């Protein structure tokens, strides 16, 4: 009986984690599409990808029980956790050093002509 | 049998591949084209997995999506960054070929056997014969490795020689240590 309840609890937690994570990933994708310029899109891509990906991976780890697959998923989570922010950082760094300006017109309605636009 | 849910993924992935193919034809910037070919390979790797062809997907993810992007970029060091203007006629020909091939794949997709079906063409006939015999002949659980390594060993040797020839060709054309720098160093 206790084992059954534990199984149900694990399933519920796993489903909740995965669906929330997928929601984060989807929100990030919508943000990628809708946000106005590169630097705001960085938030959508980088931040939500890490959180959403980790939640999905942890949710999947709960499903596999305890096996080699769990270890592989943990490694996958580690890799995504390391590489995704690093790649985002490198992209942002490269764009900044290359002189890509953020779009500031929305916040300075008067005289924001010079800054707008990504080259 | 009930509805095969993985076919929804097949359709979605094929649709995305078609879109990427059309975009590769339309774009002029070679950076973007290199990136899109990487995405295309990645999508086809995911599609192979969705078709239960794990080994093909593995190779595609490793070679097509990963390394070929880097190697294409390295090759782009020696070329221009924008493609030369193409006559509109040839453009349209490529577009027609892409769309026609994509539509043919869409047309064929509903006839695909169910995911992991026992009676699929791949699992009957010769394929089934190898499955049955490998346990006795080779005694290795992975049939693909057995086929590649032993049953079709001659074929694999040909592949290795092709790879070797490619390496020798590049080394002869560009010199392994990288042309001009050698004179500076030594």
């Amino acid at each position: 009986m206790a084992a059954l309840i534990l199984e149900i609890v694990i399933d519920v937690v796993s489903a909740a984690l995965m669906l929330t994570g997928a929601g984060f990933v989807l929100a990030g994708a919508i943000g990628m599409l809708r946000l106005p310029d590169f630097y705001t899109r960085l938030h959508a891509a980088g931040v939500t990808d890490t959180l959403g990906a980790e939640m999905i991976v942890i949710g999947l780890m709960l499903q596999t029980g305890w096996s080699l697959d769990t270890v592989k998923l943990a490694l996958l989570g580690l890799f995504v956790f390391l590489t995704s922010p690093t790649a985002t950082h490198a992209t942002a760094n490269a764009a900044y050093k290359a002189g890509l300006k953020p779009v500031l017109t929305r916040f300075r309605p008067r005289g924001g002509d010079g800054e707008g636009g990504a080259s | 049998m009930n509805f095969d849910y993985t076919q929804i993924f097949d359709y979605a992935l094929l649709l995305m591949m078609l879109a990427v193919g059309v975009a590769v034809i339309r774009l002029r910037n070679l950076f973007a084209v290199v990136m899109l070919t990487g995405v295309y390979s990645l999508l086809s790797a995911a599609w192979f997995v969705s078709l239960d062809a794990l080994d093909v997907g593995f190779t595609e993810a490793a070679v097509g999506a990963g390394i070929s992007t880097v190697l294409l970029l390295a090759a782009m060091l020696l070329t221009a960054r924008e493609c030369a203007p193409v006559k509109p006629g040839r453009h349209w020909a490529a577009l027609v070929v892409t769309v026609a091939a994509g539509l043919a794949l869409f047309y064929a997709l509903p006839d695909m056997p169910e995911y992991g079906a026992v009676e699929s063409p791949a699992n009957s006939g010769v394929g089934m014969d190898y499955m049955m015999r490998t346990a006795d002949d080779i005694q290795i659980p992975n049939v693909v490795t057995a086929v590649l390594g032993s049953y079709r060993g001659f074929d694999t040797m040909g592949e290795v020689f092709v790879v070797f020839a490619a390496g020798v060709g590049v080394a002869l054309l560009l010199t392994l240590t990288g042309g001009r720098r050698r004179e500076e160093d030594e």
Partner: protein
Amino acid sequence: MIMAAVDFAVAAMLLAGMALILARLFVGPTLYDRVLAVNAFGTKTVLFLVCFALMVGETAAIDIALLYALVNFIATIAILKFFRYRSLEVALSQMALRRALDREDD
């Protein structure tokens, strides 16, 4: 069975996200937008592969996801390095120095 349905739902949501990011990849006004989109697309595909693997019980596909998670990073770094320095050759730590010296020559 229920968990397979959850996996299916999550995989479908990830596919929808992939489609949205693909749109950004096509539109992307700057090349940096495209790099960002490629990177995000790779992460989402990795997650899709894992969800699919557990949905159909073919756990060997996790290896593919693991492989791509690593290779995606290498491709992104190569693209960025190529944009920025137009060379894949020199070490990143020497690049800044070399550029600074070039500036002083001008």
